[in-house]
């Protein structure tokens, strides 16, 4: 086989395989979205009849919009905080290479592997000591602890993708640490940082146990509301809530994409 034909075959296979995997990834959505328009009070697929009643119920209950908002209010600071701390940790460990940096990195990664209930019962007394139990900063800190490893691992991977010689060169030329980071390091690891931030936000957005332990009675998050409904019986309202979240995230994603295109055009011209 020549380089060309085998390359073409491989490419066709690759495209088919990729499309199949992407379909697998969105497959549950094909079930969830139709079920959200069900006319029945129980989940069944395909729905026996159609209606908007679950969207209406969701809006009338107005704890759903509020819970959605609460989850965002926790997720965004968690993403920012864990992205900052995780990136710093990755920089320190990957570029630092001093004695003790390797064991330290094991500590950075450890929070991810424990069942969250263990972290929750461990954190609670500490948070109570600081007066943070049941407070908004308390749950943000709790989620940040689990999300730092997500950022750490992705950023560490992008740091290993290029040689530190670039940074040494900049420093030799007299750039201080911040200039080196901002003009040399950050552009190289930008994708890794963004990926880490996304992972952190979505992890926080879906986390139940720590949120249950550390939020105050008034703060219902989306996972908690879904959990409460699931404990009783499953109505299509959970599908409606999910569909709405999907729509909002798609709109945001589209807006960002358009904005980027607009900006890149603007800078080019």
């Amino acid at each position, binding site marked *: 086989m020549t380089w060309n034909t085998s390359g073409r075959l491989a490419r066709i296979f690759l495209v088919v395989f990729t499309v199949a995997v992407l379909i697998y990834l969105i497959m549950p959505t094909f079930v969830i979205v139709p079920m959200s328009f069900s006319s*029945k*009070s*129980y*989940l*069944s697929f395909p729905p*026996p009849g159609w209606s908007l009643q679950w969207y*209406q*119920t969701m809006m*009338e*209950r*107005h*704890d759903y919009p*509020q819970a959605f908002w609460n989850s965002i209010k926790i997720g965004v600071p968690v993403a920012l905080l864990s992205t900052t701390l995780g990136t710093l940790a990755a920089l320190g460990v990957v570029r630092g290479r001093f004695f003790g940096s390797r064991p330290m990195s094991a500590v950075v990664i450890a929070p991810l592997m424990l069942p969250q*209930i263990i972290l*929750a*019962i461990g954190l*609670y*007394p500490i948070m*109570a*000591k600081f*007066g*943070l*139990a*049941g*407070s908004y900063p308390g749950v943000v800190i709790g989620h940040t602890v689990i999300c730092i490893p997500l950022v750490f691992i992705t950023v560490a991977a992008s740091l290993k993708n290029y040689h530190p010689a670039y940074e040494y060169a900049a420093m030799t030329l007299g750039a201080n640490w911040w200039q080196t980071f901002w003009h040399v390091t950050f552009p190289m690891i930008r994708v890794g940082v963004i990926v880490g931030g996304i992972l952190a936000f979505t992890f926080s957005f879906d986390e139940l*146990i720590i949120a*249950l*332990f550390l*939020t*105050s*009675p*008034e*703060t*219902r998050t989306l996972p*908690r*509301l879904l*959990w*409460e*409904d*699931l*404990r*009783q*019986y*499953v109505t299509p309202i959970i599908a409606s809530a999910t569909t709405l979240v999907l729509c909002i995230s798609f709109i945001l994603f589209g807006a960002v994409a358009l904005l980027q295109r607009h900006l890149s055009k603007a800078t080019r011209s």
Partner: protein
Amino acid sequence: MTNRNRKKIATTGGHSRRSILKGAGGLAAVGAASSFGFPAIAQSKPDQLVIASGGGALDEAYKAAYFDSFTEKTGIKIITAPYAGLAKIKSMIEADNVDLDVLNIDAAEAPVAGNNGWLDPIDWSLSDRASVLPQAAKDDHVYAEVAAKVMAWNTDSFGDNPPENWTSMWDVEGRPGMRSLWKQAFQTMEVALMGDGVAKDAIYPIDVDRALAALDKIRGDLIWWESGGQSAQYLIDGESDIGSTWNGRVYQPQVDGAPVNYTFNDALFVSGAWCIVKGTPNAMWSQEFIAHTLDPERQATYAMNIPYGPVVPAALEYIPADRLPLLPSSEENIGKGVWSDFDFWAEHGDAVINRFNEWLLS
């Protein structure tokens, strides 16, 4: 005590499903406000009581029956907190950071909490203990309702030949099909014993060997569910032909035309329990709240909002005749089942759970 005296109040719960039942709900709410004399000197009146409970449909029913009327009567608002299990109670007590007043927990958890010394005794001088079902009135907690672990089935599978009790479920040859049970020792061991032919009043103390041997008999056709919603979903979708679930989980789907049915024969009665967290500064008002829930008319309102029976038998008089067959504690149903022995589980839970886990993995 970080959460007390906050002004912002979470909005609890929907209003949609309740509208049908408003007629019955109305009767209890009136007339309560005037007739109460409080020993107001003993404790200053808080702005709010924080009640930990499971949320969802249960909370909506509690709100309709008890929370709103309590606020109307006393001016004290009720805040519902997420109930994160005994683990959170233990955390709060160990850290001396109790921000809950009243708990609505699983009746199986209440003796565990009581044995650990986390609960205040109920002040039975505020209500008539004799008016409450004897099983439901304990020294440090009161059951909140009578719910039932029932046998349910898919009517497409057994429509014209409905199963009678758990022994029907163990009749593998007579009734081929998939069976579904809760993947927990708790309640499942009792079901297995009754399925094996043990009389319902002879299941305690649980004969673990016999229960596991009974489970072995249906093992080939057995699937497991983990959450209440899942148990109903399996039966509705025909993933399981017959299995255990709670009556409240299959009631609404059945009304809406899902192909499920259930029986109270050999039902295992379970419940939530009201209790007061030791160390709350609002203990007196928490006692008032619990006494407030034991009013027969309010118990009736609760049972009209969710298909769980009152723990005060006098409440049955306020409930229309067509509702009674749905309630586990109605006169016709209470004799069909047996109460789960929560004290047995509080004492032997760990050992039985471990045996059950080992059996699952074998």
